[in-house]
């Protein structure tokens, strides 16, 4: 790769996206969020089946239930973290051009944050009955 676009100095040997940095930590996060998402997705699928055919009032009542809202927030939180670090690995695997890689990693962070915040704001608004 060319050195035309480099954010990293020689410190990259100990920091940055080098494989020596946080490989196992990342791996472990993927496992923990995966395990949490696995359990919470069962709740999510059952919830979606239950909401089938419900009218607006019933949907709001169900989503507004604090118990449901907590589980939904937990599900979305761990799932979005799981998908963010998962997509990061895919980008690091396939996007080799340095500028493109940095932009893709940033876009991944922005997208994940936006989807997470949007879902959280909506759920909190419904729960607080605004």
């Amino acid at each position, binding site marked *: *790769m060319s*050195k035309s676009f480099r954010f990293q100095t020689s410190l990259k040997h100990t920091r940055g996206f080098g494989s020596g940095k946080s490989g196992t930590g990342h791996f472990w996060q993927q*496992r923990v969020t*995966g*395990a949490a*998402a*696995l359990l919470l*997705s069962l709740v999510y*699928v059952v919830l*979606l*089946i*239950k909401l*089938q*055919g419900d009218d*607006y009032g019933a*949907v*709001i009542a169900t*989503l507004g239930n604090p118990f449901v809202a907590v589980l939904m927030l937990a599900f*979305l939180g761990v*799932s*979005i973290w799981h*998908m963010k670090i*998962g*997509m990061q690995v*895919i980008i690091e695997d396939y996007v080799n051009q340095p500028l493109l890689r940095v932009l893709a990693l940033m876009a991944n962070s922005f997208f994940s944050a936006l*989807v997470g915040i*949007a*879902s959280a*704001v*909506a*759920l909190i*608004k*419904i729960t607080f009955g605004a």
Partner: protein
Amino acid sequence: MADARLAASRPLSPHLQVFRFILTMAMSIVHRMTGGFLYVGTVFVAIWLIAAASGPEWFARVDGVYQSWIGRLILLGLVWSLIHHAIGGVRHFIWDLGYGFDKKTADRMALFNLVAGVLLTGVVAIAAFVFA
């Protein structure tokens, strides 16, 4: 630069095109693909929740799109992706614990993942139909 020489002489990992197509490698690709589908799918969840939080008119509008045949098809695809990816995750947990590495077991787990994913998606679809 010393850096560049080092990079050039580093051994390259063989990639997809040099391998014979086998079930476990196909399942590895499908696991990533379903993960990718779910990544995009979160947008549908967020839009649905925002619509629900924005009042009955917005909810009805989004609900109308999601209930269309193309909407249902996408949602069914996402349900399959979630279930397939979840079972694939369990497969990874089994490997993480140190089991299932021999060829026969790995193949059997892959096949189970594929079949169970489709069957459970059918169960969810039927359940959703029954409760609707």
